[in-house]
């Protein structure tokens, strides 16, 4: 491993968004989410695996995702999370917020 992948702490709250985004495509279990995020970021983003679980609990408490027993691709029994309607709405909100934020950051960076 040449370059150290970036830990996801530059944008607080973005973990929730990433999870929601991931689940909006497939319903997955915890480790599956980690893998997906890592792979789809081209291994650039490495989320702190332990933080995933408090985040999942928080999202479930808010009613944005729903966990239920199911089977992983490896045929293991696990809790599979899927996004709820409220979760999609939230994802929408966060995506917009995120877009605004990155735009603002970009402007600052580009300012002469």
């Amino acid at each position: 491993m040449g370059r150290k992948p970036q830990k996801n702490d530059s944008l607080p709250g973005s973990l929730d968004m990433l999870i929601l985004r991931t689940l909006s495509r497939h319903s997955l279990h915890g480790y599956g989410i980690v893998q997906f995020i890592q792979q789809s970021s081209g291994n650039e983003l490495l989320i702190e695996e332990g933080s995933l679980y408090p985040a999942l609990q928080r999202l479930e408490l808010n009613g944005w995702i729903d966990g239920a027993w199911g089977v992983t691709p490896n045929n293991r029994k696990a809790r599979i999370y899927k996004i709820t309607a409220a979760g999609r709405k939230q994802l929408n909100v966060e995506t917009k917020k995120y877009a605004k934020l990155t735009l603002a950051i970009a402007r600052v960076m580009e300012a002469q």
Partner: protein
Amino acid sequence: MINLLRRLNYWRNNETRSQILLEEIELHLEEKAADLEARGMSAGQARSEARRQFGNAGQKQEESREIWMTRFLSELIQDVRYGARTMAANKAFTALAILSLALGIGANTVIYSFMESILLRSLPVEDPESLVVLNWHGRSPQEAGKDWVHVVHGVQGMMWPGDKGMLETGMFPYAALETLRDQNPVFSTLFGYFNGLSKTLAVSGQATSAATEFVTGDYFRGLAVSPAAGRLIDSADDRPGAAPVAVISFALSQQRFGGPSSAVGQSVLVDNVPFTVIGVAPPEFFGVDPASVPDIYLPLYTTQLVDGVRAARMFSDPNFYWVEMMGRLRPGATMAQAQALLAPRFHQWVATTASTDGERAKLPALKLNPGAAGLGGLRRQYSKPLFVLLAMVALILAIACANIANLLLARAAARRREMAVRLSLGAGRFRVVRQLLTESVLLASLGGALGVLFATWGVRALTLLFSNGQDNFTLHAELNWKVMGVTAALSMICGLLFGLVPALQSTRPDVMPTLKNGRVGGPRRRAQHALVVAQIAMSFLILVAAGLFVQTLNKLHSVQLGYARENILLFTLNARQAGHRDPEMTTFYANLRRRFESISGVNSATLAQSSIISAARTGQAVKGRIMVGTASIDGARVMAAGPRFLTTMQIPILAGREIDDRDQAGARPVAVISERLARTYFGNENPIGRRITLPEEKRDLEIVGVSGNLRYGSLKNEDQSAMTVLVAASQFSPDRVTYALRTTGDPLRFVPSVHEIVREADSRIPVTNVVTQAAEIDRTIKRELTFARLCTGFAVLALLIACVGLYGTMSYSVSRQISEIGIRMALGAPRSTVVWMVLRHVLILAASGLAISVPAVLIASRLVKSFLFDTQPNDPRTLALAGAVLLSAAILAGYAPARRASRIDPLVALRHE
């Protein structure tokens, strides 16, 4: 809100959720390790690398769990702690609030428990909803004319007033049971029963009296009851010639046999007839009538063995009404269908039993009633009084709630500054309201818990009060979950309701004026005053009710009985049930009387058919009409009495003599008539030596004396009383006699000697109904007695709670006015002026409460008119007395704050600002 539900749901599954989380993390680590292994790490390395990358698993787990709990739970704990601290800091306030709420809730729970057990509880049998009671209603046999014209020629049981002056009853002839039972498409079973009242039950030589129920063979099958031991009576047991068998109650099996299993197979004597115990009923089963719990169940046909020829006639006579019936609907059948089908069938049958036009004009009509709750005697007797009591305790709870509201209002005002500070420091309004609500709910919960404690005592006390010394009293109310639920809901509602308003008020966003001034009066004080006025108005209502009931009781106690009430012991023996027969029985009873009279401390002893007050409930001592010359004496009670009856009962002998030892079986039959009877039938002539003829008995009675008038039956109803004919017990020997002992000192002191004498004479005879004359008379006014006592208790309670409210309000009001009072005193106002200033305020509040209440009282008291005797619902004396009591209580409650006000040091008060 949904969030909260989800949290609660989470807590409910706390254990499993933690377990799931653990499993998830475990799985994560395994998968990660597997991946790493696939990339070439060794198994051990992979595992530790997976753990390293995951971070602190335990901590993460803790974090995940906390997400569900933290804020909410920790805030709740904070609130409860803070609430407990403020409560501890205001001990007096808290104690008063909790106590008044507990008393209110306790009283409500008690009365509701009784209502529940009397009015709402179902029989403890399978599917009680499909049971139906068969009744009939019809015109009275004795309306208009005095002669009894009806297909009902004889009865053994109860009738009660139905709608529109009709009579209603559950008694039928046996033939009606057979007619309705055969080929019945709506009932799966139709069973009958007959209350055998108390019989003498001897178990291995030990005799006691036992409540007996005669039941048809379908009874237990129809009720769908399964035995606690042995088997129950079935159809094969209920036919002539079958071996006489008995089923006993669970309680009896424990008392007399040491448990259900050892009772089965034992032989017992019921009125000296041998029976074999074949089974024991389940513990919760009490027959079909909540008012009477049978000790022993016998097959219906065995009435013929126990009661002899008379009972055999009951079976065959289609005009004798005695057996009661219940049916169980077939699945799918409704009561309306059953009514439509059976009413014509019954009508058709009953028409064949009428022999004259007069009888045909008043045929009974079948009427089905729901049977889920069993027979309705108890409900008829108690439902109205219980609703009155429920209304009263509801008022008490309202007074208590007003107290809580008042105290919370006062406290909210006192804490307004605190709230304002908290709000201005950035506390959320919702957060502050929630904390205040937590406090008031905490208050209410404590009140509710204490209330339940009070209620358990109250239920016990009230059961004692209702039973009033009756040994076979069967009404057992208990606090069950339903009642608990109602109580809990009540206390929560009280807490929320009366916490919310002050909480919202004191957290109103405009904090600035409060921070500046520190004190406000205005609207809150008006609200408090309104509450106090309402409390006083409600207390007055209860006070007047209590006054009316106490007045009724006094009137009833001052009714002239015509005989002694105190220092008389009564008890009943039935020698016939133990096998004694005439003429030996008469001698047996007479000898016993002499033995009782020889007890030292007993001044005189006598015997009679029954106690005087219950004379109307026992049969006449003679059969048929009683005539003086050609005139038939109507409405006179003929009672068999032994020697020294008038002396023992202290009834004045107006002429001639009383019945004595001379009047033996062989001698000329004699009679002692009451003054009223003598006046009515002999005018001014001397009745001594005249004759009363008994055509049906073919005997003459010689009148040997005239006694004073005697009150029997109901104390309320005068015309029923006073006409009595006493005949000699030795000449018209009754089966059962009630002895009366006139004693020196407490009559109950002599009970052991009585038991000993009876045991010596014949140990097979139980001594029953041991009671003092005073208690026996009080039984007839049980309802009035209970009402007067309960309502007095309630009135004291209401007054107490209202006074607490008044006291609290006045104390608060004085503390608000400290500077004003200080200025007045500095300007030279004497202490008495200050006291008067506060008391005037109290009196104004009390007077306004009274003014509001009087019209309400005048309307409400009319509702209880039927409970009153010789007392007008608007009795001015009672109203005046209640008003005086209320005003003095108010002054008493207001005096302490007034005194405190007068002790204010002007200097301190002025600096106070």
